[in-house]
């Protein structure tokens, strides 16, 4: 089925929120989603309701930065290092696990819902059985320290569409592609430009690989972040996207950004591969659509808030962007 053109993008809903929303996990086939928020809480939101009033479900002990729906289970993770399982049928927490030694950055589910992956600044990706809560595998391939001997961070994770591969990306621009079944490293890609270490003026760093996404055929890997930054007090570089032939570890395309300042926090491909969309921001936000073949920008949309995550519906008709004190819904087609 042909995916709708980015030319048809239009904003249809806009909700203000009292706190930043870091993560969204849609319930397939519905207009419901689960939200992970700055107020430490996980909410269930019904976007078709006459009055938008997300329902508070439970709380972590810190920012909730990852939410995944896997069948009838929601798994959330946060800066408290914990993963919490929520039974959507029973409407209760069924399990909380001290999953990581450091801050959890993202939680996602595999396309078939049979696995949940969590990443954290302990630089480990963990694969979990969403039903039993059992830890299935640990993927270790990212260094705990940056070259300058500071703690590194593991920001990005994504499954391929067939669920066979998983990619992880860290602060210094190191990307690893894993075989999900065996846990073996298959390839690495380096995106050093997304990591800025300032050794002279400010003696610290900014940036990192913040998002990864496999093309529908699994052959290409898009990587999102930001470019080299002069003044690292701010996210002053443009949002940057690179595309790799990941098996060769070779960059095949780059979009250094031209209009929108900030960092690309989330990437997704249209199911037919005709385009790729990235979202992120700095003081404000953006949606950037690149042509799936040429990787040239075909549509760029300014959003009023820094976007931390979005949900793209299966038919590509809806993009629900969440971020700094706001949620916006755009329609395609």
């Amino acid at each position, binding site marked *: 089925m042909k995916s709708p053109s980015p030319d048809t993008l239009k904003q249809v809903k806009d909700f203000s929120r009292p706190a930043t929303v870091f993560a969204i996990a849609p319930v397939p086939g519905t207009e419901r989603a689960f939200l992970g928020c700055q107020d430490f809480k996980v909410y269930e939101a019904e976007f078709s309701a006459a009055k938008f009033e997300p329902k508070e479900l439970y709380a972590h002990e810190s920012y909730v930065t990852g939410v995944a729906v896997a069948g009838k289970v929601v798994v959330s993770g946060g800066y408290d290092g914990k993963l919490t399982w929520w039974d959507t049928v029973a409407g209760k927490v069924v399990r909380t696990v001290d999953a990581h030694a450091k801050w959890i950055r993202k939680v996602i589910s595999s396309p078939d819902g049979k696995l949940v992956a969590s990443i954290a600044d302990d630089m480990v990706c963990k694969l979990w059985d969403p039903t039993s809560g059992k830890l299935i595998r640990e993927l270790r391939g990212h260094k705990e320290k940056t070259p300058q001997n500071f703690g590194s*961070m593991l920001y990005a994770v994504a499954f391929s569409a067939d669920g066979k591969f998983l990619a992880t990306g860290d602060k210094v621009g190191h990307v690893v592609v894993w075989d999900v079944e065996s846990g073996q490293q298959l390839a690495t890609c380096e995106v050093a430009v997304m990591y800025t270490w300032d050794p002279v003026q*400010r*003696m610290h760093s900014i940036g990192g690989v913040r998002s990864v996404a496999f093309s529908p055929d699994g052959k290409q890997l898009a990587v999102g972040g930001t470019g080299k930054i002069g003044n690292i*007090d*701010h996210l002053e570089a443009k949002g940057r996207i690179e595309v790799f032939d990941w098996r060769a570890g070779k960059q095949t395309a780059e979009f250094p950004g031209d209009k929108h300042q900030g960092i690309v926090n989330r990437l997704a491909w249209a199911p037919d591969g005709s385009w790729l969309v990235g979202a992120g921001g*700095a003081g404000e936000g953006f949606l950037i659509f690149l042509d799936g073949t040429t990787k040239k920008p075909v549509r760029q949309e300014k959003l009023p808030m*820094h976007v931390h995550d979005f949900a793209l519906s299966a038919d590509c008709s809806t993009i629900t962007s969440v971020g700094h004190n706001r949620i916006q819904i755009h329609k395609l087609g």
Partner: protein
Amino acid sequence: MPSKHFCGSPDHAVSRRAFLGSTAALAAAAAADMTGLDVLSSPALAGELKKGRKRVILLWLAGGASQLETWDPKPGAITGGPFRAIKTDVPGFQISELMPQMAKRMKTTCVIRGLNTRNGDHGSGAKLMMRGRRDEANLRYPDLGAVVAREMGRADSKVPDYVTFYTQTEGRSMAPGDAGFLGARFGPMELTTNNTPEFIRKLDTITDLDHRERADLRDLLGKQFAKGRQSDTMNSQNEAYERVRGIMASEKLFDVTQESQKVRDRYGPTQFAQQCLIARRLVEAGVPFVRVARAWWDSHGQNFETHQEMVPELDHVMATLIDDLGERGLLDDVMILTLAEFGRTPAINASLGRDHFASAWSMTMSGGGAKGGAVYGKTDPKGNTVVAEEVDAGSLFATIYSSLGINPNKNYYVGSRPIPLVNPGVEAIAALAK
């Protein structure tokens, strides 16, 4: 040449230099045979000895570290950020989870949480927090380092009195060491490009004898020039030159390879860690004041990433410094300060950053006469305002001076004008007196 600056105290009717010289001799004698000299029977002498031992290491967190990610966490508040608070060795007192090592050492450290310094500008804020007050139109006040150098330095010292490391370039020009009206004699030796002083070595092209003779010639010409003239600046310059050879001999103090690998590993490999190790070497050798500037904390974007990177380094290095000084028996004599031009806003901006904020922030004093385990000041649940025990820059400096055994109300003189160390009416925080 006697100093033109005297404190005006009747106790110091003799010149300070002569007094300190005799103090040093008495101290040496006392160390040799405490039974033969009842040093402590003279309050003036005991006080002079007490303060004479004090030294300061200032960890200058340039750009403004966040109080919420260090000393005054607000877990659960919408302003609190993602990091949790952890217990410390002081019952009921918590700090950020980014500082687990300091959490075990808060009994050594006094935290002031109620700073309201009313200046959120890098340049003028840095000047304020280096001096404790704003300069007057025609009067530049000495900064903390210069005052400590003036008060604790010894005329016969072979080491510099005031050393400052500021290697990063951002903010350096906004926070220079400055002796103000005290003059060059108490100005800092500034290290900006590497960890050892530049141009400290004698040129290979001249002999040691030549070097001495040149100094003698400069001294002779200087004295001839000084006849019939009175100038604080001239006197200060002359005193600085008199100390050149001693300072030249201090080069090894800046060389961390003089320390064992075990000690260097303990501090860690970062530049800040190495400079703090050098600072320890310097105060151990008698340098009264060392500032180690660690730039740049100005996290308008990605505040939590910045602090996640930089606070653990501060935590580790500060804890190591406290342990090292303690093991060497120096912690009672050396005060470690953490200070900056301001803190950061409780409000979190769209870039997940925090901006400049001087209304309710924190600093610390460890060792050296500070009241360890004390927590002074309270901010509201979101960290926006000070709700109890507010402290301004003046009273902070009065407290630091007082903790070091320096009377904050003593006067320097510029001409005939008495200039107290802090503005009239400003007092040290009584609750923090030991």
